[in-house]
């Protein structure tokens, strides 16, 4: 038998024997154990049960049977790993199978008993005692100081959502922050889909989401927290309900997505107390300050006054501060700029209005005082803040220079803002009433005009070609007639060789021009080949061939032809020409 095994097969057999022998020999050295990551769990908590089989064996280890899991449900597919080591000639293998369990009822349970059969023996693992406690109500993280409502969690507490409003009672126009918080203690399969509630009756400002999630501890467990914040400005008074919010979370690719829905939140919006005359909707707490770019100017030269409104509240909605108009200045509408920031759920910022004034009279004057009336929500009353009067020295102005400077600056000022004093320009009484629609160029008169020129051009080109051909044909007929007349004279003189040469040249030239034979060549055969491509009847073609052959003989044969023979030949040639004229043939026509 050994002789039949080739040299190459021997090492393979030895390796197989090496692996087979120990497994049968060391079957009794196999161990099996079961353990859990926790011995006390709450309802909804996950538990990992590990079954480990190990021993000084080589080769693959068998799979354990499904472990006992009374009081628990197995979720997902078990995770399995194997290892093999060979140290100092001793072989050892191990196999670990992890099961994820979730408690299905409260109590004390023995789980993890599993069996494995190997080498004719059955090994059983010892069970593990696990206590399942009642789940305590999840509470909001301590750091959320807002009014948290509508909290919702999945049955196992893996993800939690909550919504909150920074205030539950506000005035019209008073900003409040709506926060949607998402807590997750497990890794998500994909980013959740957030469906915000309907914010009708509110002006909404979206705040940028935090770039990195915060870590928070809830009930001793670590969660990642992400917030979505929106600043709401109630547009009218009344009792409002911020509708429930939902979020769809995909925890693992094989399970159904978890949809968490929060409860709705009630909100009370109070009307503002009786509004003072100069109140223009500013709600919050603001300060005002003004500065001028010059302290001394010539009459007619512009002065720029910057009025800064800073504070907490609806910065965007702030109207320009008012000032008392004076005969000393001509004022222009301001242009504005804004910087908004968010700190501790408060909208704050600076809105700057840039006014342009032109002093009209010289002397020591005071620039206008600006004021802003707002409703202070903290003190629940209207307040008016004013700028300090700024002194300005107005010198006697150079009218033309001042006028130029003023107009340039006013133009610059207005280019960014627009002059309120501008009037609407009137309607246009005249119009070409042309259709400016792109498609209108491809229909009606436009299309006709587009198509017409090339049509005319092509028609003219064709007509020109036809006329040229006709002219060529006429020229051929006249040329042939003249040449034959000369041949007749030669015939009268008895010059037979010259007669045949002239006659055949006349015939040839006629045929070439009449049939537009461009590539006819010099030889008789080439000419006949070209003629055969026209729709010339075979009989005429045959007569031409005979005439050409006769002419050749007449020209080059030593015999002398008399006048009768030459006259007969001339009649034949003329008959051919007449027939060609009658046929009115064209080159390239079909036979």
């Amino acid at each position: 038998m050994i002789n039949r095994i080739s040299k190459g097969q021997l090492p393979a057999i030895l390796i197989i024997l090496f692996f087979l022998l120990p497994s049968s020999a060391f079957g009794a050295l196999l161990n099996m154990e079961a353990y859990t990551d926790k011995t006390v769990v709450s309802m909804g908590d996950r538990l990992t049960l590990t079954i480990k089989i190990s021993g000084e064996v080589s080769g693959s280890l068998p799979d354990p049977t499904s472990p006992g899991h009374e009081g628990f449900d197995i979720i997902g597919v078990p995770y399995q790993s194997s290892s093999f080591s060979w140290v100092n000639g001793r072989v050892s293998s191990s196999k670990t199978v992890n099961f994820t369990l979730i408690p299905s009822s409260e109590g004390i349970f023995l789980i993890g008993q599993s069996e494995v059969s190997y080498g004719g023996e059955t090994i059983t693992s010892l069970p593990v005692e696990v206590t399942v406690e009642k789940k305590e109500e999840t509470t909001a993280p301590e750091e959320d100081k807002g009014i948290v409502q509508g909290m919702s969690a999945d049955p196992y507490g893996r993800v939690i959502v909550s919504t909150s409003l920074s205030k539950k009672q506000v005035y019209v126009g008073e900003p409040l922050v709506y926060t949607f918080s998402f807590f997750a203690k497990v890794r998500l399969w994909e980013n959740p889909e957030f469906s915000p509630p309907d914010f009708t009756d509110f002006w909404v400002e979206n705040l940028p989401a935090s770039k990195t999630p915060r870590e928070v501890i809830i009930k001793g467990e670590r969660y990642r927290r992400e917030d979505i914040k929106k600043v709401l400005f109630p547009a009218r008074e009344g009792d409002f309900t911020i509708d429930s919010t939902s979020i769809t979370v995909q925890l693992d690719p094989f399970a159904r997505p978890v949809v968490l829905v929060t409860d709705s939140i009630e909100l009370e919006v109070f009307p503002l107390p009786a509004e003072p005359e100069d109140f223009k909707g500013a709600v919050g707490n603001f300060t005002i300050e003004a500065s001028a770019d010059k302290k001394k100017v010539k009459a007619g030269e512009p002065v720029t006054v910057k009025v800064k409104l800073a504070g907490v509240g609806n910065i965007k909605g702030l109207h320009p501060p008012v000032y008392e108009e004076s005969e000393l200045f001509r004022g222009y509408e301001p242009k504005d700029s804004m910087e908004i920031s968010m700190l501790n759920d408060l909208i704050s910022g600076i809105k700057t209005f840039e006014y342009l004034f032109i002093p009209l009279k010289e002397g020591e004057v005071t620039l206008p005082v600006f004021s802003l009336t707002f409703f202070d929500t903290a003190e629940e009353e209207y307040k008016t803040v004013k700028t300090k009067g700024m002194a300005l020295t107005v010198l006697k102005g150079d009218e033309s220079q001042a006028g130029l400077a003023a107009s340039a600056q006013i133009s610059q000022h207005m280019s960014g803002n627009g002059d309120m004093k501008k009037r609407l320009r009137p309607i246009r009484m005249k119009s070409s009433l042309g259709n400016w629609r792109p498609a209108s160029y491809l229909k009606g008169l436009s299309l006709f005009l587009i198509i017409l020129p090339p049509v005319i051009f092509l028609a003219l080109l064709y007509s020109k070609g036809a006329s040229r051909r006709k002219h060529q044909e006429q020229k051929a007929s006249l040329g042939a007639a003249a040449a034959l007349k000369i041949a007749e004279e030669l015939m009268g003189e008895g010059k037979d060789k010259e007669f045949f040469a002239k006659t055949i040249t006349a015939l040839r030239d006629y045929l070439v021009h009449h049939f537009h034979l461009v590539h006819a060549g010099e030889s008789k055969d080439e000419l006949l080949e070209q003629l055969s491509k026209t729709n010339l009847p075979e009989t005429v073609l045959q007569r031409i061939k005979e005439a050409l052959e006769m002419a050749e003989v007449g020209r080059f044969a030593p015999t002398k032809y008399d006048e009768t023979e030459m006259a007969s030949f001339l009649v034949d040639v003329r008959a051919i020409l007449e027939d060609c004229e009658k046929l009115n043939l064209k080159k390239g026509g079909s036979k």
Partner: protein
Amino acid sequence: MKSLILVVIFLLLAPATSMGKNMGSSIEELFSLSNMAHVDGRYEEAIRGYRNMEKKGLVNPDIYYNLANSYTKTGKVGLAILYYEKSLKLSPNAADVENNLAVMRERIAATSVNLDARSPWGKLFSYTTFKGCADFTIFVYLLTFCTLIVMLLKKNEKLRSRMRRAGVILAVLSSLSFVITLINLYEQEKVSYAIVVGEGVNLYEAPLEQAASSGILTEGSKVKVVDDSKSWLKVSSASGTVGWVQKKGVGII
């Protein structure tokens, strides 16, 4: 042959020109009547007249401008701004339109955020209009063929040679002009804007009436159209907020 061609041209041109004249006269009459109604203060009547012209498929900056003025007088700020913008799109840099548009924007205190993000090509051709380019192209195109036709008709070889050269130059010019016209058309059509014509139009987070509102768009504000879905438009506001609005609440420029 020449006379036959001329007769054919005449016969072909005659009905087209007379048809154009008939249609033109009714439009001119309507334009005149609408203008009179506006001048007399019958703004609703003027609006109906201008709108009728628009419904007939006429795209004209003068009609849009006058219609915008009539809307201004009736206090329909959003529609007024929409038609000023439409007029300005066809005829950029028109001083009266720019003036009235600025007045209307001031009236609603619209933010002057520039939504336009033209490509380098777009900037290059921002001073040209499709109409201007198209008219020029057609003119050069017709001139090219006229030159070539004259070249065919003339017998003087020297003159024919000159005409041939001129024809080639004009053909190159009309081809270039045609390319510019196409670029202009593409630049105009690839990005579209809309004006909010309703009062406080809701911006939704999804194209559904049940979807959450992510803000309110003020009448007359300009938005960039990002997407289109049945009766909804996805738009981006001047502040960068993206959401869906119902088509009935906005007018595409």
